[in-house]
């Protein structure tokens, strides 16, 4: 039986929240594919930054099956509300907070996150479009689509537990090699788990973990 993941018909969204699309599905596909590896580390705490409708964190909560706890943040209050509604519709719960990136969960979650999920605003846009709020905060990524990503990368190693990992979405324009280089500089190794060509973009799921692990 395939693992249970979130259902689109139970996922809440409106015009002010980023609707699940190929990037969201791909992140969940990668999470499911990699789950046998993740499960070996007995994950207890999972965190998604920018949870939008909650489709991804809800899938993580279903995979964890009560053996762990999920946290989700979103800078858009309507997205945080949608996340909570999506979780409730699936009969699972997560800790949802409104806020920028880690939304006050640092420093307490530092060194405690076993699975960090991040579908960032990765679309290259003019810098002034970044962080305008509403649904555009879900995709406007500024220069090379990296302005929000680059605020997160230096923090990843501090957040992850010793056996923790990051799964994130990237597109070709983000310069995958440079992202891996940045992660390496902070003590994380990384590899591409999935690559797909969608309508107008080439999407990647990158996994990163502590360099001292195999």
């Amino acid at each position, binding site marked *: 039986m395939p693992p249970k993941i979130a259902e689109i018909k139970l996922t809440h969204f409106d015009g002010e929240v980023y609707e699940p699309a190929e990037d969201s599905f791909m992140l969940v596909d990668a999470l499911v594919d990699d789950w046998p590896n993740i499960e070996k580390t007995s994950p207890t705490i999972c965190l998604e930054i920018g949870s939008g409708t909650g489709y991804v964190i809800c899938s993580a909560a279903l995979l964890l099956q009560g053996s762990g706890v999920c946290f989700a943040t979103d800078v858009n209050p309507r997205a945080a509300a949608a996340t909570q509604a999506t979780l409730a519709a699936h009969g699972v719960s997560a800790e949802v*907070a409104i*806020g*920028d990136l880690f*939304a*006050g969960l640092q420093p307490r979650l530092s060194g*405690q996150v076993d699975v960090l999920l991040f579908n960032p605003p990765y679309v290259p846009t003019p810098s002034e479009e970044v962080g305008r709020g509403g649904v555009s905060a879900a995709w406007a990524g500024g220069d090379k689509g990296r302005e929000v990503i680059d605020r997160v990368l230096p923090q990843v190693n501090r957040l992850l537990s010793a056996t923790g990992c990051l799964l994130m979405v990237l597109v070709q324009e983000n310069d995958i090699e440079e992202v891996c280089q940045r992660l390496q500089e902070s003590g994380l190794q990384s590899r591409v788990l999935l690559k797909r060509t969608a309508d107008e973009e080439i999407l990647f799921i990158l996994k990163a973990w502590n360099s001292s692990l195999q």
Partner: protein
Amino acid sequence: MRLLTHNMLANNAKGVTKGFPLGLEVTAVETKEAEFNPDFLKKMVPKLEWGAFCEAAAVIGVTGFPTAVTPDLFEDEAFLKKFHNALLEVHVEEGVLICPESGRRFAINKGIPNMLLNEDEC
């Protein structure tokens, strides 16, 4: 917002050095049943700031937790049930989180704490 979330949130505003634990004021609470999982509870204890948890539990009306969790308590069903209830079943639907240093207030509406900072706080 469950007490588990409260235990992990801090005020990260610029200039604040001790933004944890946040004070808690509660105006509406709901209790929703959650699956009782002693193994999960045991895993969570070392991840919590126990003192902050006990203080928040008192606010929602659950008192009498020991000052520290000793291994024998993991065999104590009454303790585990009470811990489970306070940590995972009580949801603060409406209330306020208060920074212990600056007094900054963060609203909890419809069960979701709003930790957004103003531009001058970042």
